[in-house]
């Protein structure tokens, strides 16, 4: 996610200025047709009427959003009552993503800081070690996690075999398994931006504070954490946003009771529920949520830069 990154270097070379629009044309066309237009079209679909067994009828309707927030009874003519089914799925997704983000921060911050304090030559190798798992197929990583955490899996074998537990722990199909899966999926995203910020941290500040009799932990809290805050914020967004809309971790590790937004949306298009406008509306609500988070953070960062 390079949303906050600058668009270019400090030098403004103009060597290829006359050709710039031609050079950009292929990307423009591809991304406009295959990303921008589809997202706009999805927005349109969320205001259409559903056709049974998938698809839409071209008739304006707010019923998709209405269904999301209100319950009008079996025949649709009762007075609207706020309905919690879908709101609570969104709320659970926010909570699960939040817990996963917190877990990543607790593990990711010390890791990033530790790497930043290694000798310069070693750092690249540490960063590389943290990055590799990210490039391994997310599906395979999630399946591996499930394999490890199973009731009869290696983790439980180890815990029971070593006498730590008398009975295997049930982890799969719990909220915790989903949190663990999300944490595992996006942990490298937390480490990298914090590392980038910590690497630029001026340790003379720590020394100055220590000379003024600050303890090590006071230095951490009062000097180090505020200095690397932009990295922490970036890391939290990079973990939280993909967690929010994730499909694989809740689907494979969570089971039916631990439904998240991703599964709700998928079901509208893949499953038997087949309500396309509702799926489009749920996607729009998710997209809006994400864009608001990104905008707020971009604002904050712009303010911090002044």
């Amino acid at each position: 996610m390079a949303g906050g990154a600058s668009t270019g270097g400090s030098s403004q070379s103009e060597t290829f200025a006359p050709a710039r629009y031609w050079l950009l044309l292929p990307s423009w066309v591809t991304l406009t047709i295959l990303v921008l237009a589809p997202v706009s079209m999805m927005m349109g679909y969320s205001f259409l009427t559903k056709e049974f067994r998938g698809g839409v009828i071209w008739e304006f309707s707010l019923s998709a959003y209405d269904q999301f927030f209100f319950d009008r009874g079996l025949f649709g003519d009762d007075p609207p009552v706020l309905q919690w089914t879908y709101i609570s799925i969104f709320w659970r997704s926010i909570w699960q993503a939040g817990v996963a983000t917190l877990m990543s921060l607790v593990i990711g911050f010390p890791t990033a800081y530790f790497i930043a304090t290694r000798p310069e030559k070693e750092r690249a190798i540490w960063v590389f070690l943290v990055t590799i798992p990210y490039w391994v197929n997310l599906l395979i990583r999630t399946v591996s996690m499930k394999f490890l955490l199973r009731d009869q899996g290696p983790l439980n074998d180890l815990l029971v075999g070593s006498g730590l537990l008398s009975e295997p722990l049930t982890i799969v199909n719990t909220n915790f398994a989903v949190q663990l899966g999300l944490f595992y999926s996006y942990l490298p995203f937390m480490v990298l931006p914090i590392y980038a910020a910590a690497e630029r941290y001026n340790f003379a500040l720590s020394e100055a504070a220590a000379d003024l009799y600050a303890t090590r932990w006071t230095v951490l809290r009062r000097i180090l954490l505020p200095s690397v805050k932009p990295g922490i914020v970036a890391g939290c967004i990079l973990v939280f946003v993909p967690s929010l809309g994730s499909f694989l971790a809740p689907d494979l590790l969570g089971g039916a009771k631990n439904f998240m937004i991703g599964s709700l949306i998928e079901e509208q298009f893949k499953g038997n529920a087949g309500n396309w406008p509702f799926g489009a509306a749920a996607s729009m609500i998710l997209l809006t949520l994400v864009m608001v988070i990104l905008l707020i953070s971009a604002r904050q960062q712009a303010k911090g830069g002044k």
Partner: protein
Amino acid sequence: MAMKSYDLRQYPSFKAITIFCLFILYAPLLVVTVYSFNDSVSITNWEGVSLRWYAEVFTGAESEKFKIAARNSFVIALIAASASTVMATFAATAILRGGRFKLRTASFGLISLPLMVPEIVTAVATLIFFNAIGVDRGLITILLAHIAFCIPFAYLPISARMQGIEATYEQAAMDLYATRAKAFTRVLLPLMMPGIISGWLLAFIVSLDDFIITNFVKGAGVETLPTAIFGSVKQGIKPNIMAISTMLLGVSVVMVTLSWLISRRDNNK
């Protein structure tokens, strides 16, 4: 005071947490790799080392399905990575070497769009789009979707590399009467090669790995490796799936390592 200031940088327990972090990142992958060599029908009991599940992948009952899926995945990844790398290279040249212009920021925003929109939303949108314009879903729709979302992944290493190259090289070439096209192909392109290769490799992995978007835009009966694996895993984790996963994992690790070594060797020069 000098001794103390050096110690200040270190916090007790941070090293332990780092090792724990790496342990968490690698443990599930190592466990699956080890168990893929298990000579047992059950995935629970360990019965010695064997390659039987690898043989099963290539010759077993499901081998045909996985062969086709693997071929689809690799062909799509190859074309998507190449197409997106070409587009990303052009776009980076315009954005970083095209001076200041009105649509510069907007272009960069458009290129990063696939990274900002949640994947499931892109998947839904692409499905709706193909359905609305009446295109039959199949390999072509998967390929088109992959080309689009690979562009930012190819763009990032390419633009990072280009930012490190001084514009004086192309300018010198043009001072010596090279045409703009020559300055691009003979001077800028060779200098950017490490970034382009990294970008291509990353785009290739991203395409090879994609599940969510592929799952939405693939037609019935068309499978790539991730969708075939997902379908199989839904009925329980089987040993042959662990063998396939281990091989795919190997491909990703090799490609990322290559990409890393290429960019590193070059930075050390």
